[in-house]
């Protein structure tokens, strides 16, 4: 059995071990002990805070194997991207080229530096250990952040985005960076990411990045080819997020050209199809029809818990049957409310 819960101070050593094995990249867990400690403390403070307007809070969740008492995944959500500055991305604009006299009409893509994702809620740091990547636990982990957000709408924006790492080669070279950012920064991709600490909110981005649109057809073929493409390590996350309702075409990362998925919460399945149901003690009814994996979470902010259970279609139901051991994990009792959404 696996549970997703907010990170705790005791998890720090486990997070350090995880950080040691995750691949290099900027959208995953921080790597140094200091930064991990900071992330955990910030999450604890954020969970405890009374929030009216989303700001600097960030929430870090872990996936725990209850049998092994082992952390095997992480996922985070920042309440408001760029809340201490501006979150910069490239907007992928389509420019219509029209000449009536020549009877020509076609469209050209251009990348424009923009700050439109500022104040969106920002999902990040998604990592799942290899042994649980195939199961419903990966989906549970990714979605738990949104279940939490759905239960605490005042802590988050109405829109969400997730940057996924773009394509780099074995030597750490990014074809997109080499064609775009390098001309201005005059340094290698990994050096630039190190310099900027993976941030997308720094003034030096405005100072150095192009002020005018980058016309895509003018970029070398290898740079065009990787625009909006994910690093292989991001495939699982990409599939989970697009199934959730995130869309990929509008924004890309200014450094590596990786996709930035985004959506209004109204377009996300967790928000539109989750049901608030009463807890009934029992095993899942095996009435007519097949079983589905459902994510089920309690509604308590600080002690947020989410699990995945097989369950018949809950559409039209007003209660869900949970065995006592699941109720214990979720810290709920018969008659309490839980939020359920099909995975």
């Amino acid at each position, binding site marked *: 059995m696996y549970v997703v819960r907010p990170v705790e101070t005791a998890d720090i050593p486990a997070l350090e071990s995880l950080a040691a094995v995750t691949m290099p990249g900027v959208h995953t867990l921080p790597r140094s002990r200091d930064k991990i400690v900071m992330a955990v403390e910030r999450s604890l403070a954020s969970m405890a805070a009374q929030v009216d307007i989303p700001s600097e809070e960030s929430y870090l969740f872990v996936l725990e194997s209850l049998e092994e008492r082992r952390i095997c995944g992480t996922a985070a959500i920042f309440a408001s991207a760029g809340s201490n500055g501006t979150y910069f991305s490239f907007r992928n604009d389509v420019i219509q080229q029209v*000449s009536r006299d020549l009877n020509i009409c076609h469209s050209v893509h251009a990348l424009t530096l923009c700050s439109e994702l500022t104040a969106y809620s920002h999902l990040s740091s998604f990592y799942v250990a290899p042994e649980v990547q195939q199961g419903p636990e990966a989906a549970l982990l990714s979605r738990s952040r949104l279940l939490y957000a759905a239960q605490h709408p005042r802590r988050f924006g109405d829109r969400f985005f997730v940057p996924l790492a773009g394509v780099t080669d074995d030597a750490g070279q990014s074809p997109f960076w080499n064609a775009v950012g390098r001309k201005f920064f005059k340094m290698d991709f990994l050096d630039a990411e190190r310099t900027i600490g993976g941030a997308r909110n720094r003034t030096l981005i405005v100072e150095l990045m192009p002020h005018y649109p980058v016309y895509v057809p003018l*970029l070398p073929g290898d740079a065009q080819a990787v625009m909006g493409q994910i690093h292989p390590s991001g495939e699982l996350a990409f599939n989970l997020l697009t199934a959730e309702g995130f869309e990929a075409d509008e924004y890309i990362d200014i450094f590596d050209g990786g996709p930035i998925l985004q959506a209004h919460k109204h377009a996300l399945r967790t928000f539109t199809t989750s049901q608030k149901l009463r807890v009934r003690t029992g095993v899942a009814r095996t009435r007519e029809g097949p079983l589905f994996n459902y994510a089920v979470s309690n509604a308590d902010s600080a002690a947020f818990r989410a699990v995945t259970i097989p369950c018949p279609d809950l559409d039209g139901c007003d209660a869900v049957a949970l065995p006592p051991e699941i109720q214990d994990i979720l810290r709920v009792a018969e008659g309490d409310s839980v939020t359920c959404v099909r995975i």
Partner: protein
Amino acid sequence: MLVVRAIHEGDLDGLFNLASQVGTGMTTLKADMKMLGDRLATACASFAETIPPEERDYLFVMEDTANHRLAGVCAIKGAVGLTEPFYNYRIGTLVHSSRELNVFTKMETLYLSNDLTGSSELCSLFLHPDYRVGHNGKLLSKSRFLFIAQFPHLFTEKIIAEMRGYQAEDGSSPFYEGLGRHFFKMDFHHVDDLTALGKKSFIAELMPRQPLYIAYLPQDAQDVVGAVHKSTAPARRLLEQEGMHYEGYVDIFDAGPVLQARVSELRALRDSELAIIAPDDDMVHACAPATTEPTLVSNTTLRDFRMIITEAASVNGSIDLSAAEQQLLHCATGATVRTLPLNVKKNQ
């Protein structure tokens, strides 16, 4: 003997014969009787001053008086871009710097512009291959500057000349392949033909509106920004000697440079002088240096503007022209002519 003169009504056949020799690459001189006839009519109206200065198109021909053949042609347009937008790319500089990273990057940018709207334009220079010897090319090209020096009030503050841009051996334009093709999706020569038909502004509609960083173009396109076609290099040098400069404007298709000058700073405006044709019995000839540099000399008549090269020099406001030379200029002793040394003084 060769004379450059204002074109006349009777020159249409000769002009057509010349245009037939031009071949591809010169968009303003097509061997098309209708187009040439229209242009000739405009030119005659221009010299007759029956149309406003900005609509004028002064066409000059070089005539071989031995056989009355037209050996070359050139033109000055009163103003460009007043009926159809006149597009260029202007090259600008943007500095991106970050003190935090100690990076200081100077980037060149292309701005789609109509800045040269209203300028006068030197254009349509063509010399018949049979006459490409000696000073003939200079005589033909520079005749326009003497004309401008004589009639500066007819021209705007700024004069320009578009130079054909660099082409590879196979006739392709690296600049076009690196930029324009992505937006037009047609061949360079097709674009060139449309340009010849006056469709340049419609094509320009398809150009990206936003400034472009040159560093984002392929290297071979970057390399030819402002570079001329190799056959155009001598023409460029001639114009530069007369005071025209490349100031960062290029053609939107092939990135050929636009040379430009303030009219008041042209060599012809600064250095040309008026002189009186001296009577034979004067001592002008005796006092003149034994060997002189060739000198351009023109009459001062707008409608019947004529210009030749002479070996005579202007001394103290007088010049000793032979009877034949006077004949070529349609001038007689005592008339005022304008003179300009053919070549730039070396020590300048």
